[in-house]
């Protein structure tokens, strides 16, 4: 093949900055592994420190971090999405906590109990703390950065491909399902109505989506191989999230925190 006789074009030379971009803000610019370690610490704290202290501490920390990294709104979305579950937890535990015997009132045959209320609130708080901790980590970490970092730490190109491709394929599959559902609704399929009719609607919906996706597998496989996907050795990383001293420090602190909490719990100091 004739070697390129062109000098680097005016359009670009070296890596463009939209490839090497770094997110702004202290929390966001932390290494992905650090953010995951912090989330792990928060989850352990929420569940292991008994009583209200655990979830309360975690939620307070999360609120502060979220405010600092401009993800408060994202967290509120998470909270709202968890609402049906929270309501369910409150209602079921309020009325049906096994072994509870301190009723608040008697409403006909129902007897909400104080311990039920307490337990329900505590479970809900723990749940919110846990899901918010995880949510914060992924709201502040684009998938690409996470995968690039894991790549640097040894995750093979196949793992990177599976996760990256899955994340990108979900919206596309959703669009397809939407299109199929619209087409079927136009043909009279029920999406409300009785269970039996809805159940029957699953197959004509699932089949085209699944078959369409499977039909592409062959071509995708060949396309990947045609781009040297199975070449030996490590792949070049164009972009790696930096791993600074502060990241190491925070990770060690998180590990120490987890060990301390577990130790305290096991020795009965906090649980």
């Amino acid at each position, binding site marked *: 093949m004739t070697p390129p006789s062109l000098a680097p*074009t005016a359009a670009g030379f070296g890596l463009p900055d939209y490839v090497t971009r770094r997110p702004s803000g202290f929390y966001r610019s932390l290494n992905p592994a650090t953010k995951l370690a912090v989330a792990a610490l928060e989850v352990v704290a929420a569940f292991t420190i008994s009583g209200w202290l655990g979830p309360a501490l975690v939620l307070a920390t999360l609120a502060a971090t979220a405010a600092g990294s401009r993800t408060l709104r994202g967290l509120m979305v998470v909270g709202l999405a968890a609402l049906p579950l929270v309501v369910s937890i409150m209602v079921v535990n309020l009325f049906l906590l096994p072994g509870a015997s301190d009723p608040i009132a008697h409403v006909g045959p129902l007897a909400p109990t104080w311990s039920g209320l307490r337990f329900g609130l505590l479970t809900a708080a723990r749940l919110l703390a846990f899901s918010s901790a995880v949510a914060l980590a992924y709201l502040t970490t684009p998938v690409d950065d996470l995968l690039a970092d894991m790549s640097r730490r040894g995750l093979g190109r196949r793992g990177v491909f599976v996760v990256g491709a899955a994340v990108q394929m979900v919206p596309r599959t959703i669009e397809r399902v939407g299109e199929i559902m619209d087409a079927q609704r136009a043909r009279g399929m029920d999406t409300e109505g009785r269970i039996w009719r809805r159940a029957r609607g699953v197959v004509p919906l699932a089949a085209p989506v699944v078959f369409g996706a499977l039909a592409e597998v062959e071509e995708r496989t060949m396309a990947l191989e045609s*781009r040297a996907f199975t070449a030996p050795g490590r792949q070049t990383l164009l972009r790696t999230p930096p791993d600074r001293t502060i990241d190491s420090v925070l990770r060690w602190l998180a590990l120490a925190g987890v060990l301390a909490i577990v130790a305290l719990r096991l020795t009965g100091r906090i649980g």
Partner: protein
Amino acid sequence: MAIELESARYRYAGSGSAALGPIELRVEPGRVLGVAGANESGKSTLCVVAAGVAPAVIGGKLDGSVRIDGVDAATLRPHELAQRCGLLFQHAHTQLSHTTATVFEEVAFGPCNLGLPVAEVAERVWWALGAVGVEGLAPRDPARLSGGQGQLVALASVLALRPKYLILDEPTSELDPAGTRLIADALVRVAAETGAGILLVEHKLDVLAHIADEVVVLERGSVALVGQAAAVLADPRLAELGVEPPAGVRLERAVRDSGVEWTASMSESIR
């Protein structure tokens, strides 16, 4: 130096009969070989066999020989084949890696897989984008490109591996006339700049009329017609082989049938 198929016969895995062959074919550097034929005539099979992808990637049984620049394709691993023969398919979308956020990184996917140093990756990417003419698309999201743009990016991605030959299986089949023109022009440019040998399967014979040097017509897996493009595309046997002649040829016939004389300047004006 060429891709040479000698007495090649190929049967897909799990299939009872041969989809291709016996067939003799040569793809020479610097020349564009067009391939036409009815459905099920073996055009797609020819592509994967000539690229060595069958049987290396998709299994099946190959009799006879496929040699790329004198080397038996059966001795080459898929990533080695990818650096000799670039392969492109019809659907732009299935050729994306789905793991990248920008076109730049998408085109870099192949070179990164090879583990090349970052500087060389960047150089190859800019060169490939320039060769195809899509530097402007570099910052864009690959998932949001139009069909034509997607195919151009796929072409650049394959070029980034610096293959000596390009094999394209109906790259314009899902594109509108504008997109088709884009691809055809890009192929002309690539052929001129890189001296690559091109094997182009097309249903739209107008494209072949525009850029092919020679044309082969397949029937049931074997060569039915072969020769210079202009001669083959004007051959009256095309119809019985299930292939519709290009618009220019049909126009010429219609004009002649109506009794008007067809002149050289008319041929020029419809090019």
